[in-house]
């Protein structure tokens, strides 16, 4: 305390300046504690890229298995995000309104897939929708067979990834003050109009960031997919499955696909942090 007072005086002696340097040196020491964690996470990520040249990546990606995997991952994760938005937005709205008597129960239920091991999700889906189960048999009568189909990949991804969108959207809805909604209601807006013209525009950033989180998670889904949907190139073999299986034959293809997933996830998350945050700052300035 006393030191700070001396330091703030306009006339600094040489001794003072030295002590300030020492103190700043001492104060920044804690930053060294961040090094192990940064190194621990950074080194493996860097190692993926170290053994790769752009040509190797390009050549590995020409293989039919890689092309099929990328196409399938893009398709299924896109459908997963769409399904999450369509079926998840009402859930998010319900959770945010906190009207339901089973509020905590429902909230926890939605949280559950994000903490469960994906293998549990896969087994659960298989036991619920598999061919030998009552639901599976009803579906089979309708001519629908879920296991080993692309639809099963989407189901596995949605089960694991949709909660991320729902939670993010619910937080976004909650950030809209109830005064604004009441004011709109006083002006004669009905419930749908309030949602469409007040809540949705104010919460869109949370919806978009929720979509991106769900998308990244869906792209990376492995455990539930390999158990529930199996592994067939072109139909259920997404990028993470191709990486896992490919590791046993062709390290380069596996590394190239890994590199693509890393670049994709990094860009998505970075975009979330920069673009969306900048927008928030702008709104605040206005």
């Amino acid at each position, binding site marked *: 305390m006393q030191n700070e007072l001396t330091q703030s005086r306009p006339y600094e002696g040489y001794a003072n300046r030295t002590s300030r*340097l020492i103190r*700043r*040196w001492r104060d*920044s*020491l804690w*930053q*060294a504690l961040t*090094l*192990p964690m940064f*190194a621990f996470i950074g080194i493996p990520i860097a190692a993926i890229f170290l053994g790769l040249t752009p040509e190797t990546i390009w050549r590995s990606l020409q293989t039919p298995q890689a092309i099929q995997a990328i196409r399938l991952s893009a398709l299924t994760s896109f459908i997963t995000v769409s399904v999450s938005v369509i079926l998840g937005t009402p859930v998010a709205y319900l959770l945010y309104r906190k009207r339901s008597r089973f509020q905590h129960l429902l909230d926890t239920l939605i949280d559950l897939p994000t903490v469960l091991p994906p293998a549990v999700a896969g087994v659960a889906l*298989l036991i619920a929708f*598999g*061919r*030998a189960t009552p639901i599976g048999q009803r579906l089979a009568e309708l001519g629908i067979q879920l*296991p*080993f189909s692309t639809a099963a990949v989407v189901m596995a991804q949605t089960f694991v990834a949709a909660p991320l969108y729902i939670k993010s959207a619910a937080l976004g809805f909650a950030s809209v003050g109830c005064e604004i909604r009441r004011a709109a209601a006083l002006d004669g807006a009905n419930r749908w109009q309030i949602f469409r013209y007040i809540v949705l525009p104010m919460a869109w950033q949370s919806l978009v960031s929720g979509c991106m989180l769900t998308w990244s998670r869906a792209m990376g889904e492995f455990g539930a997919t*390999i158990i529930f*949907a*199996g*592994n*067939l*190139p072109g139909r*259920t073999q997404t990028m993470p499955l191709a990486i*896992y*299986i*490919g*590791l*046993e*034959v062709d*390290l380069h293809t596996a590394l190239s696909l890994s590199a693509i997933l890393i670049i994709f996830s990094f860009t998505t998350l970075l975009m979330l942090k920069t673009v969306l945050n900048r927008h928030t700052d702008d709104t605040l300035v206005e």
Partner: protein
Amino acid sequence: MISRKVMGFLTAVVALLLSQCAPQPAARSNSAPQQVELTVFAAGSLTEAFTELGTLFETQHPGVKVTFNFANSSTLLQQISQGAPADVFASAAASFVDKAVAQGLIAPDHVRIFARNRLVVILPKDNPANVQSLSQLTQPGLKLVLGAKEGPMGTYVEEFLNKASASQAFPPDFKEKVYANVVSYESTVKGVVNKVALKEADAGIVFLTDAQSAADKLQILAIPDNLNVAAVYPIAPLKASPNLAMAEKFVQFVLSEEGQTVLARYGFLPPNDD
């Protein structure tokens, strides 16, 4: 500025500390020679048999702790060549041990064949697709599950299908039609067994030993000898093993009459019986 210099200095210190870490494990194992930990890398299909063998070996050699790493043979080879600390490698196919020999990880004269296995077709207990013969594997709409083409199972299944397609008893496009029925290439043989036992698939092709591990939920359709494959299981101590003598003892134990009795109980065939 200063803080950046400090960070640079500390980075160097941390790097130095990290580089010092490497030789320590060796020092640790030297300080406690009586407690030997033997790490055995074994193919997934050996899980039950080797777990029992490990327990038996431990009771006969006090102070020895046998730990296992069970996985696909090709995964194991990857891990070993990336420097995983293994003492013994037991593979489900000769090719993987051959590769390890080629990479200088195993001395060629230390490789022994300790068991053989054969392929069978497995069906769910109630056989929903009503498969009675091998030729029905091509029946349209049949849901067939196989091991990953990249693993040893994939190679063996392809060998069987090649032999069948070449024989008089099957049409020449047998192999293509069978592959067209595949709904999933599972990453492990256990995955194939589970998918069939859960009735998700109508049929699968696995080793006889894997089929026996879930015998109560499966029907087994034999593959005749002339179409079957010679799946041999080689075992060898690794050159880099710090417990080479103990590793060699474990190999001898697997080959011993006692070891062979255990393996036979799990459905493995003896190494040289024609």
